[in-house]
């Protein structure tokens, strides 16, 4: 089959690889109808996140049709079922899964001992996302093997296009959980850093949950444009002081709820045409990334909440914990517990409260995938979300 394969830093190719096989009785094989490139994939593309090996298949936002089911998954899945695959692999049985803390499932990371070294304890296995989280082949491919398939799937009805359902795999529940973590009150101002796909979903989720005012912060004009379409007031952090504007918009009190939808990646973009830009970016890697968290902690209203869906890998520098402690801020973060939210979100899509396909700006075949990685990373051509059709 064809698949997008990681070969090294900024080197992803559309290769021919062996078809996946059932390896365990709980497995199922999916014929992929649609998959997407995620901001998290860019961490791997730029090789910012360690733990990739040449030959690894990319992708964790996938949907398709079940074509083969292992013996132990037969009760839950059958050939022909239409499914969206969550990016977190879950067993459904461990203590964490039972609590709905799916992204920290205790059983699905087959390299759990490595994760435990890095984080103290293991976290869930993830598709196409480094050997730290199991080294499972990803779904930017024609076929995908789904381990623990009896639990690791979201059944979706026929008659709704892929485009409306695909993002149940990751970014929609991620934006949703980011907003839910804020426990939004009707009087709240929710400030969201980053108007990428996750930020866009967080904006819509905060609106659905009834926030009084949603403010989005980014510097890419098209992304700010789309944020405004979703009902957000926008701040271009290149042109305005974020802190000043946020205080202005909240009578000097600061937003009650702050969401970091930027993470480690945004300023890690590598090649650019001009030396000048390269230097500028290199300096930003040092200053701007902790800057988002710092800005949030500083501007957040006392007794407010910092919600952090943005992915961080290791140690962060100069976080103003004094502000966090003395203002009594609550911090909530984590990889998304996808399946905890998807039944409810599927219903909201069916009822027409939201149509997540608004975020798609590019749809291409798998063979154009490697080019799209670069266009998405460089935010060229108005690119916000790429869907691949194997």
């Amino acid at each position: 089959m064809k698949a997008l394969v990681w070969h090294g830093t900024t080197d992803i190719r559309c290769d021919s690889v062996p078809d996946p096989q059932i390896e365990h009785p709980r497995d199922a094989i999916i014929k992929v109808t649609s998959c997407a490139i995620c901001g998290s994939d860019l961490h791997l593309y730029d090789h910012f996140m360690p733990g990739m090996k040449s030959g690894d298949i990319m992708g964790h936002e996938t949907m398709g049709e079940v074509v083969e089911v292992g013996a132990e998954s037969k009760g839950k899945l059958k050939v022909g079922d239409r499914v969206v695959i969550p990016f977190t692999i879950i067993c459904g049985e461990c203590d964490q899964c039972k609590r709905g803390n799916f992204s920290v499932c205790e059983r699905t990371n087959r390299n759990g001992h490595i994760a435990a070294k890095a984080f103290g304890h293991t976290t869930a296995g993830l598709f196409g996302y480094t050997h730290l989280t199991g080294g499972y082949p990803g779904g930017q491919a024609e076929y995908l093997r789904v381990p623990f398939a009896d639990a690791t799937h979201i059944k979706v009805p026929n008659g709704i296009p892929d485009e409306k359902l695909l993002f149940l795999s990751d970014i929609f529940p991620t934006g949703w959980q980011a907003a839910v973590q804020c426990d939004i009150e009707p009087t709240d101002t929710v400030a969201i850093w980053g108007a990428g796909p996750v930020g866009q979903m967080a904006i819509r989720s905060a609106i659905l949950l009834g926030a009084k005012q949603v403010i989005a912060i980014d510097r890419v004009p098209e992304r700010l444009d789309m944020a405004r379409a979703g009902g957000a007031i926008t701040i271009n952090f290149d042109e305005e002081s974020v802190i000043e504007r946020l205080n202005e918009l909240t009578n000097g009190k600061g937003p009650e709820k702050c969401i970091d939808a930027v993470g480690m990646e945004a300023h890690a973009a590598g090649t650019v045409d001009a030396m000048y830009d390269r230097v500028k970016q290199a300096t930003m890697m040092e200053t701007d990334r902790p800057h988002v968290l710092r800005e949030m902690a500083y501007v957040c209203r006392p007794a407010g909440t910092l919600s952090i869906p943005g992915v961080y890998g290791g140690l962060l520098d100069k976080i103003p914990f004094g502000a966090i402690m003395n203002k009594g801020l609550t911090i909530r973060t984590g990889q998304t517990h996808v399946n905890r939210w998807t039944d409810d979100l599927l219903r909201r899509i069916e009822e027409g409260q939201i149509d997540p396909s608004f975020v798609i700006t590019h749809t291409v075949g798998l063979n154009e995938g490697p080019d799209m990685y670069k266009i998405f990373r460089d935010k060229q051509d108005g690119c916000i979300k790429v869907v691949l059709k194997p």
Partner: protein
Amino acid sequence: MRYETERTRRRGHADTATDTLARGLGIFSIALGIAEIAAPRALARALGMKGQEGLIAGYGVREIATGIGILASKDPTPWIWGRVAGDGLDLATLATALEGRNPKKGNVGIAMAAVAGMTALDVYCAQTLSRETPHPLPPMQDYSDRTGYPGGIEQSHGAARDFEVPRDFRAPEAMRPYTQPQTPQRPMPSM
């Protein structure tokens, strides 16, 4: 990544610093122009150019027009080149004041040095802009209709208020009085 903002994007190039420099030169043009129109006599006296007041005021009009061109146009490049040409004219005119027995030669020399400095800045700015404009960015995509709400935002705003936030994601009870609006309860103790 190309470093673009709404402002630079309109200009069709991606370098904020040069953009800012161009704006600065535009403002400088207008300020200088106003000075030349408002006080041509004082300037003429200082430079030992009595009788050329009309010419100086004329140059002032030129400066203001160039300044407005720089600030108002989508692409300031030709206007900055216009400034370069104007600098040449200024230098040539000042050079005539060096001839003969002008007692204010020292002042003229200072003025020429200043204009030469500005010329260098103008040439740098014009060249940088010219290098960038041949590769304008593609026009900005319009996503203003990408709401994501099939029934419109009014219908979706608060549509999920029925959602019950799980206990582990709720704000600590003790914090609620601070994050919620103050309902007038007990009068605050006077300070």
